[in-house]
């Protein structure tokens, strides 16, 4: 009974997702909706059942009070959302706004750096013989199969006070003599690029690999410089991959706090650590839930704006899910 209701509901909104045209095309449209239901249904159903419903329950506590130990209790209150706005037992401060902007900046840095690195790498792989390409792709993701703390700690050593790269920085007076490059903002950027590069490269490669080279040939006479040729013939074809890559990198980097903690010297909280702390070290579950709700709303709004923008970029079809 429960399942049937759910699937009916799911069917309904998937149908409504496809705008229903008039009589003549209606059967065609219905067949299309059915196919959509068969293919996209299971995946969406899975996410709804195993993430949306469970998290709705947990996030619901964002509207409850918290007891002294940070557990949710009645009555219903807006207190957690006031805390999100910056009001605490110690008065108001702009801490949360700064944390939000700081995390946004981090997401931006990670996205730009990985995209700049990913393009040459993807085209490098594409110009290799077809048999070698899977191997080169595997070697991109492989480092991420080791433990994140272990490999990030290795970076801490590679950029530490006794590392060759740091001696160069010492000689150039970029870094004070007894300190290392890590912890610092350069180290954080390195760590972010290292962590998120595979997530930019995989979708970009998947979409660029089927590149239509005839367009490039045709454009050769039109565009004088190599960059213009790339920009007008190659780049538009990679947009769907780039957009998926941006989502894979920007959103997790927005919430990431392991890298800034280990390589940044942990001087400042990130939105990810602020939320995590509310469920662990300094428990206040309703506040944590309220923070998550606000973050979800902002990210969803950002993604819708991103979709509208990508539709413009992608021409007729949808360029991203």
């Amino acid at each position, binding site marked *: 009974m429960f399942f049937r209701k759910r699937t009916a509901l799911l069917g309904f909104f998937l149908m409504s997702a496809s705008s229903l045209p008039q009589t003549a095309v209606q059967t065609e449209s219905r067949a299309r909706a059915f196919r959509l239901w068969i293919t996209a249904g299971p*995946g969406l159903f899975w996410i709804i059942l195993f993430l949306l419903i469970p998290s709705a329950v*947990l996030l619901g506590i964002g509207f409850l009070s918290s007891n002294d130990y940070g557990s949710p209790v009645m009555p219903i209150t807006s207190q957690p959302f006031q805390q999100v706005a910056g009001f605490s037992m110690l008065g108001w401060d702009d801490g949360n706004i700064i944390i939000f902007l700081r995390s946004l900046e981090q997401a931006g840095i990670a996205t730009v750096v990985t995209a700049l690195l990913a393009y*040459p790498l993807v085209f490098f792989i594409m110009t290799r013989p077809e048999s070698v390409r899977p191997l080169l792709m595997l070697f991109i993701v492989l480092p991420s199969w080791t433990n994140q703390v272990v490999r990030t700690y290795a970076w801490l050593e590679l950029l530490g006070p006794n590392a060759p790269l740091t001696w160069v920085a010492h000689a150039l007076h970029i870094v004070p003599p007894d300190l290392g490059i890590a912890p610092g903002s350069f180290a954080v950027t390195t760590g972010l690029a290292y962590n998120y590069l595979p997530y930019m490269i995989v979708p970009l490669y998947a979409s660029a690999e089927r590149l239509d080279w005839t367009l490039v040939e045709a454009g050769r006479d039109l565009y004088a410089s190599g960059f213009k040729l790339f920009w007008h013939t190659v780049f538009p074809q990679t947009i769907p991959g780039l957009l998926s890559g941006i*989502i*894979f990198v920007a959103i997790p980097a927005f919430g990431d706090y392991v890298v800034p903690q280990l390589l940044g010297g942990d001087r400042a909280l990130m939105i990810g650590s602020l939320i995590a702390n509310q469920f662990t070290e300094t428990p206040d579950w309703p506040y944590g839930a309220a923070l998550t709700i606000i973050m979800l709303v902002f990210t969803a709004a950002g993604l*819708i704006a991103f979709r509208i923008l990508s539709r413009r970029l992608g021409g007729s079809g949808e360029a*991203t899910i």
Partner: protein
Amino acid sequence: MSNVVPRSVRTMLSAISWPVYILLYTPLALVALYSFAPAPNQTGHSLHAYSVLFADGDVGAALRRSLILAFGSAIVSTSLGTLLGYGLCRFRAPNARGIAANLPSLIIYTPIIMPSLVFGISELIFFNFVHSTTGLLNAGLGTMVIAHITFQVPYVALTVFARLAGLDPNLFEASHDLYADGIKSFFYLTVPVVRPAIIGGFLLGITLSIDDFTISFFTSGPGSVTLPIYIYGAIARKGISPEINALGTLMIAVIIVLAVAHFFINRHRERASQLPV
């Protein structure tokens, strides 16, 4: 196709890419170096850490669970995600606008957006509830597989979608005429076309699963300790020991050897099959 790219650009691509590959493996080289730390109260390099590692049965069990979890969840999520990406690209009515049109997309994004702690705790509460009311979904490797599938699906779906988006829709129409049957057309046309995306999505799925700590920790049950859970705990207690470094080194080394061996065997076979002609 690639002959379109001029030699000078190729040289530039190589000049950028090889250093990036080297940088990707520099931290791992350091990890490997530390794994050959001397045995207690001795100097020089040794295989001490490896012998400790092999003697520890817990690590082997954790590794086995991690592999089951990673491959099990990635296989299911790749199937679900491929269908999802394909369906939304092919069958969603074009030019649909409004909330309803964005809703499936927003659902797909939630596993990426959701903070992992909220994700894990939500699922723990949910699984506990289902277990106490129905007796199903007892916390353990099974619940971990379910959770891991959930966070991998969007990565596969978006990768597959990126591959399909921008493809000439006429290609599908033509195949429809050819095969008539939608399922046949899916397997004979779509799957070969999106293969690189399916493989890529599968690799991302494994990558996400094999090093996931938070969600695994909360959805695990008694005894279902995976490698990340073991390693994070061990680091908290003993620091990054030579044994932990040895474990990382061994894993990467084994995969590299397997992949390279597979590559050469394949090439050998292809050549052998071409020769008689």
